[in-house]
């Protein structure tokens, strides 16, 4: 063992902050990886699911005989066949003690409650054979009336989504600042207010629409099972599958290989995962299920879908006095993994960045005969931010104030951090004024206002509007004690391990399972800095419960701020252990050692140093270690945050509205986000861009539309409009940096930021363009037709006709999956 003499004098460039290209991208983009659907196992059977074409009905008979006899078919299983072993899909978030959970069989047994619900599964030797046999299963339904409208569902005497329940209400959750001691009495605040503005906002239903359709493979080996699934949550899935199916947890291994996007849509325990496990167990054969895109749009969980009744109180000068939110949140037909928790997360965010003295939030979870809703990028926080940022504009109009001035008057000042809000959250750090100033400069605010004035005065058919949205969000889900206080079924910690290999290479094991965000790159940067090893020498392992046995997976902008923090802590432990070995080998005391650029040196003794790679080899050999030391410098760490982190930002949108056609076009978009310390600017920029695209999509393009019979009309990408780069503007982005004090990286989380802030900015901009023409609101998405109707007929643009477009040879779901009656063809005359 020799001391290294020829180390470069120059310290290596810090990895954190470097715009590294993502090391995982080449294999993801070129397909040089094994996606779940690529897997082929010897003797593997294929599943196809027979789905309900009716939104609500009793199953009176199922005839599977023709399907069973079809070529290549091995078995056909109905809900009745697996009734005793399928249990109920789990809901891990009982938000109130008396929350009503109707239970959720993976395959319907007696009753179907939404179009697309599984009623049988075909097991065949090929995917084609399985698919062909689907049409041979004959199911008789006694139709029941479908409950589709939330407001009707909670009205007196409403029809029932589940006829064995007493109402369509699952829960009634209340947060009252007065009762919680975080604010004053809300009713009093409203009684005393000089100005009250009330609005009803609609958060339309969205579909996560991840790039890789869901796919599951299960391999039985004796009484052990390995499941590969395109999931965000292999660890949670393993626990839940054990609980649901009774397969013992230690007999289950779950692997999320490379996963192509999720956006919350793969934060789920799906019926098909349970079905695949049950079939593999019953037949003792490996099985695979992969969905089609139409199946995905129709049956994977949806997001958003709230009706928000928002009241805001203020004085004449624009000092806000109170906020009252009553929310109807559509759960769909069943409660999935965290369905009830999504609107409840919003409860702590409706007050936004403003200093409300009084606040009350009430939310009803409502059952309807639609696909369940659950997490979707932002989960509760986009809904909350939309409401507050829209109502602030409405209040500004009422007061005749500049909307920015109103915000400025009420937001938390930079010197007031940390600030405990009326919702009881302690915002960690930030500076809203600076971010806003930068955003105004980026977009060229004054010139745009001048142009707007000019267009108004000249009566230009194309009007210009400017919309602002600020935001903050609670990121890094989550402090376990907070989750406990909200009755969530698990903690919010994250786990990491670092293994120092004999050759000096480093394996990092993370419990936070990526689905495309760039963990491998960012984690490598973190570890390279902390251990002083080359970026290329770090390999990040994830997604397999036998490789990364402990983890809480990825959602809620938690990966870097919780999972990355665990990695950093593990690295610190590695260094601490290595220090002991170094001290021993260098014959110095630990206190005299300095660790820089990956090497320990003895203060005051030039040349006496050891690189961490040398220590790794020495530890592997274990010939000469300190007395009593076990021969390992590997380390594990579990990080449980004390608090959320609170990124914030100001987004500004300039929107052109063609008043002749109702077409809207984003002219300019600028945003300045504060996401704390930036580990990789390229990844952050990518997250912002993608987030903006998704948030703008909610404002302008996307909506899951059901017809009067409960068929999903937007059943293909022809009708569910996901915008492409061609439909989006250039984004001018910027950052301010206020480190998060709650984690060792100082990062705050960026995965949801763009999605949260952009939606209200875009809608505010469109309204700003046409408010002088008498328009008060336009429902999302702002289709040209809605904008035109709001301009010409008043109102908010109204409902869309529910027939699918005639393009594509009329290939709408009405005819592919659903049963159509005269009611469902409202407006459709094909």
């Amino acid at each position, binding site marked *: 063992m020799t001391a290294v003499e020829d180390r470069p004098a120059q310290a290596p460039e810090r990895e954190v902050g470097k715009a590294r290209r993502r090391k995982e991208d080449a294999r993801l983009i070129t397909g040089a990886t094994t996606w779940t659907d690529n897997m082929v196992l010897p003797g593997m059977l294929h599943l196809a699911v027979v789905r309900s074409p009716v939104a609500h009905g009793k199953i009176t008979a199922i005839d599977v005989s023709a399907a069973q006899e079809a070529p290549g078919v091995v078995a056909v299983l109905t809900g009745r066949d697996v009734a005793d072993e399928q249990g109920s899909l789990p809901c891990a978030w009982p938000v109130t003690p008396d929350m009503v959970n109707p239970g959720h069989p993976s395959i319907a047994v007696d009753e179907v409650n939404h179009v697309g619900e599984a009623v049988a599964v075909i097991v065949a030797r090929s995917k084609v054979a399985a698919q062909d046999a689907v049409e041979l299963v004959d199911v008789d339904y006694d139709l029941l009336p479908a409950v589709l409208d939330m407001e009707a569902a909670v009205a007196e005497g409403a029809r029932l989504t589940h006829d064995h329940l007493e109402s369509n209400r699952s829960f009634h959750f209340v947060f009252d600042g007065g009762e919680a001691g975080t604010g004053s009495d809300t009713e009093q605040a409203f009684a005393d207010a000089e100005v009250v503005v009330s609005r009803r906002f609609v958060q339309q239903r969205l579909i996560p629409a991840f790039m890789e359709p869901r796919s599951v493979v299960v391999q039985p080996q004796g009484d052990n099972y390995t499941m590969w699934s395109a999931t965000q949550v292999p660890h949670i899935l393993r626990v839940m599958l054990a609980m649901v199916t009774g397969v013992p947890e230690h007999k289950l291994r779950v692997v999320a290989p490379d996963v192509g996007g999720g956006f919350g849509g793969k934060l789920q325990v799906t019926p098909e995962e349970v079905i695949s496990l049950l079939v593999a167990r019953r037949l003792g054969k490996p099985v695979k299920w992969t969905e089609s895109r139409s199946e995905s749009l129709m049956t994977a969980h949806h997001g958003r879908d709230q009706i928000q009744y928002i009241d805001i109180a203020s004085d004449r000068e624009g000092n806000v006095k109170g906020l009252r939110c009553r929310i109807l949140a559509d759960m769909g037909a069943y409660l999935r993994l965290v369905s009830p928790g999504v609107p409840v997360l919003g409860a702590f965010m409706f007050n936004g960045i403003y200093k409300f003295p009084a606040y009350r939030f009430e939310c009803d979870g409502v059952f309807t005969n639609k696909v369940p809703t659950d997490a979707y990028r932002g989960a509760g926080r986009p809904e909350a931010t939309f409401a507050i940022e829209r109502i602030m504009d409405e209040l500004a109009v009422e007061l005749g104030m500049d909307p920015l001035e109103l915000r400025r008057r009420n937001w938390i000042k930079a010197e007031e951090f940390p600030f405990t809000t009326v919702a009881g959250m302690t915002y960690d750090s930030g500076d809203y004024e600076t971010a806003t100033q930068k955003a105004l400069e980026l977009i060229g605010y004054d010139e745009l206002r001048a142009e707007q004035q000019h267009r108004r005065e000249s009566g230009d058919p194309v009007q210009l509007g400017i919309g602002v949205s600020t935001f903050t969000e609670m990121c890094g889900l989550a402090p376990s004690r907070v989750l406990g206080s909200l009755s969530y079924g698990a903690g919010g910690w994250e786990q990491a391990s670092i293994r120092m290999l004999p050759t000096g290479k480093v394996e990092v094991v993370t419990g936070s399972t990526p689905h495309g965000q760039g963990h491998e790159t960012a984690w490598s940067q973190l570890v390279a800095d902390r251990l002083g090893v080359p970026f290329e020498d770090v390999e990040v392992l994830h997604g397999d419960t036998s490789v990364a046995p402990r983890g809480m997976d990825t959602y809620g902008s938690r990966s870097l701020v919780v999972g990355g923090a665990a990695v950093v802590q593990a690295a610190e432990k590695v260094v601490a252990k290595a220090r002991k070995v170094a001290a021993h080998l260098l014959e110095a005391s630990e206190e005299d050692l300095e660790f820089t650029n990956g090497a320990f040196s003895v203060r005051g003794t030039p040349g006496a140093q050891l690189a961490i790679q040398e220590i790794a080899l020495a530890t592997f050999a274990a010939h000469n270690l300190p007395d009593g030391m076990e021969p390992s410098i590997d380390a594990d760490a579990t990080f449980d945050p004390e608090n959320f982190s609170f990124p914030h930002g100001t987004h500004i949108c300039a929107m052109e509205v063609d008043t002749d056609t109702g077409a809207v076009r984003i002219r300019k978009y600028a945003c300045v986000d504060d996401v704390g310390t930036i580990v990789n600017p390229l990844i952050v920029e990518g997250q912002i861009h993608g987030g903006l695209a998704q948030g703008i999509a909610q404002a302008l393009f996307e909506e899951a539309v059901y017809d009067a019979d409960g068929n999903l009309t937007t059943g293909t990408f022809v009708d569910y409009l996901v915008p492409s780069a061609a439909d989006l503007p250039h984004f001018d982005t910027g950052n301010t940096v206020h480190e998060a004090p709650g984690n060792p990286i100082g990062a705050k989380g960026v995965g949801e930021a763009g999605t949260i802030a952009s939606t209200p900015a875009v809608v505010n901009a469109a309204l700003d363009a046409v408010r002088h023409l008498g328009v008060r609101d336009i429902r999302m998405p702002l289709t040209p037709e809605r904008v035109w109707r709001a301009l010409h007929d008043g109102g908010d643009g109204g409902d869309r006709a529910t*027939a*699918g477009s005639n*393009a594509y040879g009329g290939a709408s779901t009405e005819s592919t999956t659903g049963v159509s009656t005269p009611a469902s063809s409202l407006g*459709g005359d094909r």
Partner: protein
Amino acid sequence: MIPASFGYARPSTVEQAVQALAEGGDDVKVMAGGQSLIPVMRLRLAAPETVVDLSQVAELRGVRDDGDAIVIGAMTTHHDVLTDPLVRQFAPLVAEATETVADRQTRARGTFGGALAHADPAGDLPAVALALDAEFVLAGPGGRRTVPAAGFFVDYLTTALEEGELLVEIRIPKLSGEWGVRYEKFNRVAQAWSIVAVAAAVRREDGHIAEARIGLTNMGPTPLRASAVEAALAGAEASPETIAAAARAAAEGTSPTSDLNAQADYRQHLAQVLTRRAVTAAAGM
């Protein structure tokens, strides 16, 4: 999804293709670029007994000059149409509309004849063919016949093509004189079908509009001509007011559908706005 199983023929001449159609059984579908047929089959909305794939029929590709018309082979891809010098010179409206069809990938595979024979009223090319008085040459067991555009589009996804017949080429009369053209397309995202679109060709003479031809996309089960507008514009002064007044008749005689993108009354409104814009642009104003 996976299509239901089907028979497959890949002829290499028109003659073989016609024979394959005759022998294909009860439900034969002709596949040109496959950009509409394959998705519909994958959704199992169509389950033909036999698919006759024309991709190897070389004689159906390409554009040629035929005196007072250009002739576009039915299997010429959108990409080849819009980059063809003859099309650009003599049928610029076709080039302009073709450029708005779907996306680059679809234009590389989708064909001119396939789009017309599919006769999707939301498709961009039928209204253009109608506005330009194109002629459709069909081949069948009994030989060839020619159908004018006005007689080709019969109903929703239905054309004058009889069972066993094949669209082989489309003759587009050259526009002589001082013509301006414009395809005004309205949709929500770049690659989408038209919600409404207007194809206009306008011939100017001495500050007047001598002749206007206007085709409407997606304003009924078939493409339509805005005849009332054409009549109002013939011989009219080329002024914004005249054009705007004439365009108000654009929705006359239309019967558009109502769907997610637009209800019928909004489509009729769009037809008026887009007609005004298309004619204004085509008139060089």
